[in-house]
């Protein structure tokens, strides 16, 4: 059994038109940038993408939006992408906006075999329309369902040949839950190391959740808002 894939085209093999794909990342931080570029190359269409954000116009998921490869986005915040807003307001793009915590928890639930759970988030808003409401401890909650995907594509800092993953700083974000929720989970990593190189006490995503792993060719890691202070 070998999870390591040498060529990115093999890693993404099987992703077809009309499928649902989860992609890790928050803004441009921790996104599987090599895989996104490969999806552009593959030209796969009518994708439903579950991702907290939609990239910027010329990077990240924005690249797929530009080429109209995405039919539907399931996200929590899309404010950084003008092309997204244009396609959504014109009705070209279906959009399901979800509270960020509910999005994270729904992915985790999908991976954890929990079909539905109650959360207070979104009660009394558009998000609650058509959803069951129930009061717990005097507070209304809505029933949210699990999310899963045909493929989950995540980006990690280090990964080993067993598929164990380690993330760096806030590049972790949605990646661990999405890794759990993919029928097939693909991990692109900055460093690919032999099994036994990572401390088993500090694995963020155990290999059981990862079916394919490869070392990304190039990590541009673009910064969205470069904020700095001057040295004293």
């Amino acid at each position: 059994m070998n999870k390591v894939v040498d060529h990115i085209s093999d890693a993404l093999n099987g992703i077809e038109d009309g499928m649902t794909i989860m992609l890790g990342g928050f803004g441009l931080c921790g996104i599987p940038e090599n895989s996104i570029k490969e999806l552009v190359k593959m030209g796969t269409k009518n994708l439903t993408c579950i991702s907290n954000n939609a990239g910027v116009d010329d990077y990240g998921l924005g690249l797929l939006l530009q080429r109209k490869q995405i039919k539907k986005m399931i996200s929590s915040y899309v404010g950084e992408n003008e092309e997204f807003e244009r396609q959504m307001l014109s009705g070209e793009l279906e959009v399901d906006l979800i509270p960020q915590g509910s999005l994270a928890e729904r992915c985790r639930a999908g991976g954890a075999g929990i079909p539905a759970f109650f959360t207070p988030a979104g009660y009394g808003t558009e998000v609650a329309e058509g959803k069951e409401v129930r009061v717990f401890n005097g507070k209304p909650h809505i029933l949210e369902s699990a999310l899963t995907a045909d493929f989950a594509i995540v980006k990690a800092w280090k990964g080993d040949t067993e598929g164990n993953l380690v993330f760096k700083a806030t590049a972790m974000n949605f990646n661990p839950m999405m890794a759990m929720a993919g029928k097939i989970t693909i991990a692109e990593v900055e460093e690919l190391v032999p099994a036994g190189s990572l401390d088993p006490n500090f694995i963020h995503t155990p290999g059981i959740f990862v079916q394919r792993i490869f070392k990304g060719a190039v990590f541009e890691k673009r910064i969205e808002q470069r904020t700095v202070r001057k040295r004293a």
Partner: protein
Amino acid sequence: MALDKIGIAKRIAQELQDGWYVNLGIGIPTLVANYVPEEMTVEFQSENGVLGMGPFPFEGEEDADLINAGKQTITVNPGASFFDSATSFAMIRGQHVQLTVLGAMEVSQYGDIANWKIPGKMVKGMGGAMDLVASAENIIVAMMHSNKAGESKILPACTLPLTGVGCVKKVVTELAVLEIKNGAFHLIERAPGVTVEEIIAKTAGKLIVPEFVPEMVL
């Protein structure tokens, strides 16, 4: 004189208590971190997965993997921790965060808040705001009293799609500190030099004005 953004941030910073974990939204709320009283330890949580945020990095030391919820490059203080988004919202939903400060387009006298969508015009998404307002026990809204057209954003009822209902406890604007309870805004403090009359004129929602309204001390 009406407060500037820094003034609003300074006034909100007075609400902090030692040992609190605090989530600051994008915009004015972010500035609150700069005015924590010196003798106090307050930890800042950002919903993208970090506790213990520090100042912006020195030039050249930015790390693309280390950002806040506003996608800005940041640093962390000793004792910080990183975690995934599910754990981050477990902290928020589970009420482990003692204070949430966020911006708003509209707030109603019942504590309803709208800040994520203008139908047909602007849809950025709610991000973590709906989770934050539905969960937090202690929510302060930092906002301007009026919009650019001069219309009050402190309303009897929100006109925009809601982010949350009955959740806002306190509003700090360039003019005043308002407490929300029993279906009304209660005027607690006014900005230095701002008259009660001006606040009344610019507040569309039901406003309860006590006999004496102290000036803020910043």
